[in-house]
């Protein structure tokens, strides 16, 4: 079985793994933050009171490492103001309200008008498009990595000429407990994912192509193998059965699991080892952008945990979490935490008034403090050291961070931590190790900037 060093086996609780993706009702209002991606923040292209259509580009940036933003519903721009953001806390955002009740049309039973922008058109003869044209389409569609980090896809697909890419990996590991959006999309959109991957193949001209799926999703593995056989691609694209272990889906670990290459530490990227990793949902988004001409305005999100009816939903970007939870039957019992993302790497929110952004893969609602154990001194059990997938020594970094000895933290490679949470998970003393390492990382970043 393919795997990497370290890692943990948490309880997965993927309660929604058998639920078909449902289309969430159209939201009456969306909040579209100007930064939903890694990179430069966008500048709005519209003003208050402007009428926008679905798929219309409403914000972009001149910087290369950025991704433009499109209206996900049609309606009026209410304003451009600071709004809550699931990752950044607060961010300037464009608020669009759809035109409700204004029109009475049998075509729109919900009373919400959907008007598509003229630019959204199905493309014929996709095969004739050149590499640069394809990259341009993906850039204009605002596609970003949908696994969580939201790195602009066109940047990933444009490696610098000195970095030869020979391997492309499609990430269907979905190692995060509770989340099932990738699993469902793999089952329900298999062919589109493969077609999206073929576009990546055309752009990058690599030699090896893999789809990595954890072995707790046997049906997805079987389906991909079958479809690839049907499309005559079984020799070109290989489906890799991965061990179910967290964090299998993290790029660096996934690359090591499949082709045993190590991404260099200290800020190295997969492309330094000749690899590009794309999430399965990103491949689907690439398909939508190229074949359907549809920009990234919706994604699949798992709403799970302490809600009455957990679901996998196809959601318009910018929909409020509040609305989605209402659609899932509301909260169950008294609520302790709302987490944007999964339980291992997700971010706890201080409100349910936050929008779904491009990188949101799930919303996990936890009951009032599932576990609350008292923190005590480290007993040096070394579980954090043994389980760290980056081979770090979390307890040592924690002890130095507590004393503000950041030089020592650097000596123990604090900056290489990508906050998967394995150390805090296994710690029998319940020390929030990630918290301390993050603190050390931020201090080290500040120093570097000076």
């Amino acid at each position, binding site marked *: 079985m393919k795997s990497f*060093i370290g890692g*943990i086996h*948490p*309880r997965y609780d993927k309660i929604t793994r058998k639920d078909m993706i449902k289309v969430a009702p159209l939201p009456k209002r969306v909040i579209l933050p100007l930064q939903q991606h890694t990179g430069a923040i966008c500048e709005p292209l519209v003003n208050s009171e402007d009428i926008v259509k679905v798929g219309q580009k409403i914000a972009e940036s001149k910087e290369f490492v950025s991704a433009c933003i499109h209206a996900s519903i049609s309606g009026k721009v209410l304003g451009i103001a600071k709004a809550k953001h699931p990752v950044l806390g607060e961010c300037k955002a464009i608020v669009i309200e759809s035109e409700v009740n204004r029109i009475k049309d049998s075509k729109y039973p919900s009373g919400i008008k959907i008007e598509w922008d003229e630019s959204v058109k199905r493309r014929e003869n996709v095969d004739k498009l050149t590499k640069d044209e394809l990259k341009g389409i993906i850039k204009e569609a605002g596609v970003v990595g949908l696994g969580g980090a939201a790195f602009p896809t066109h940047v990933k697909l444009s490696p610098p000429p000195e970095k030869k890419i020979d391997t492309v990996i499609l990430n269907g590991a979905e190692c995060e*407990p509770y989340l099932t959006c990738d699993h469902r999309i793999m089952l329900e959109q298999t062919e589109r994912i493969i077609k999206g991957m073929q576009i990546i193949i055309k752009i990058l001209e690599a030699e090896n192509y893999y789809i990595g799926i954890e072995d707790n999703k046997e049906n997805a593995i079987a389906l991909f193998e079958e479809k690839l056989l049907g499309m005559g691609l079984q020799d070109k694209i290989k489906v890799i059965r991965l061990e179910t272990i967290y964090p299998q889906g993290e790029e*660096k670990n996934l690359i*090591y699991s499949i082709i045993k290459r*190590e*991404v*260099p*530490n*200290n800020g*190295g990227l997969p492309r330094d080892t000749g690899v590009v990793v794309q999430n399965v949902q990103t491949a689907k988004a690439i398909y939508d952008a190229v074949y359907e001409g549809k920009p990234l305005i919706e994604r699949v999100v798992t709403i799970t945990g302490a809600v009455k009816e957990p679901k996998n939903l196809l959601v318009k970007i910018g929909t409020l979490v509040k609305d989605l939870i209402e659609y899932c039957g509301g909260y169950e019992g008294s*609520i*302790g*935490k709302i*987490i944007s993302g999964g*339980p*291992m*790497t997700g*971010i*706890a*929110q*201080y*409100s*349910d008034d936050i929008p779904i952004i491009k990188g949101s893969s799930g919303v*996990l609602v*936890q009951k009032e*403090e*599932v*576990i609350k*154990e008292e923190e*005590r*001194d480290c*007993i*040096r*059990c*070394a579980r954090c*050291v*043994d389980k760290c997938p*980056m*081979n*770090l*020594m979390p*307890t040592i970094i924690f002890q130095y961070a507590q004393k503000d000895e950041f030089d020592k933290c650097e000596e*123990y*490679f604090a900056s*290489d931590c990508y*906050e998967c*949470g394995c150390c*805090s*998970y*296994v*710690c*029998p*003393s319940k020390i*929030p190790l*990630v*918290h301390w390492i*993050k603190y050390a990382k931020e201090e080290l970043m500040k120093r570097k900037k000076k």
Partner: protein
Amino acid sequence: MKLTVSINPHIKDKDNVNKIIWYVILALLPAVGVGVYFFGMDALLVILLSVSSAVVTELIIQRFTGEQITIKDGSAVLTGLLLALVLSPLVPWWIPVLGAIFAIAIGKMVFGGLGHNIFNPALVGRAFLVVSWPALMTKWLLVDGTTGATPLGMLKLEGVKAGYNALFFGSIGGCIGETSAIALLLGAGFLFYKKVIDWRIPATYVGTVFVFALIFRQDPIFHVLAGGLLIGAFFMATDYVTSPITQNGRLIFGFGCGFLTIILRLFSGYPEGVMFSILLMNAAVPLIERYTKIKPFGYRKPEKEKKEKPAEEKKEEKKEPEIDLIDKKGHIVPNSLSKAQTKEKLEVYEEKEEPIREEEIIKPKEEENE
């Protein structure tokens, strides 16, 4: 709606410190049973006195210092139990009491409590007793009710070896909990099953003793089964707090313990070497950890790159004043660049009003580069 905001992860493993310690105590129960079976109520009394003294000592100290009372975590119980298991059943009642008090007070609490001690507290207590009352500590009860020497003692003094069967089941003279190999292995099996202990320390410890016994032309199986080796290797050397946190470190630690044990057994005045070998290796833990510091996944050396680069830059800069407007490759340096350079030079001249040395030109440039 009141929401909790905290850092990830939002789920945690069910294992906690208390659970782990009570697992270890549970794993020691077979050895306790065998000890009481062979040595009778004397042994039970020693165990009870030791455990209760340890718990009471910790309670009093934590009351006195105003710290949080942590006796529920079982750590004091474990220390008391381990100490009793490495005492002879014939010791007078005050020996386990004094030993447990010393183990908790000096072995653990003075360092700051659980997690901060350098030496295994139970062994600190035993070492204190062995050096203070050597005669009392080496009086052994045999199964037939008479007193005599332990198998290792007999080997040292008379060159007689006990049979494997007796060693395996525990019908020999010795400490309460160390005589029965099968009881200890049963407990160790449970700890492996619960993933409480790692294989590295016990395997290298026992393995090293085995190999060196062979090298010194001794009976390796006898050396593994006799004395406190098994209880030491599985229950004492594996103590989290006092063993290395790196995997390679644990290998070195186990090897060191094994090597010292066999050396002490064969060449020192004591018949047994487990206690001192573990204590000595405890002291070496910080050193071992420093030399087995693990490298992160995908490690590349950053120092070399950094060192090489400034060196090259310095060379280039040194040449600049000589060649002036032509660079290394012979191309003419663009005007803007050369102007900027001369400007800098002029500024330095004006400020210092002294003939400048090359280093002074380089210095501000270095800062820019950084």
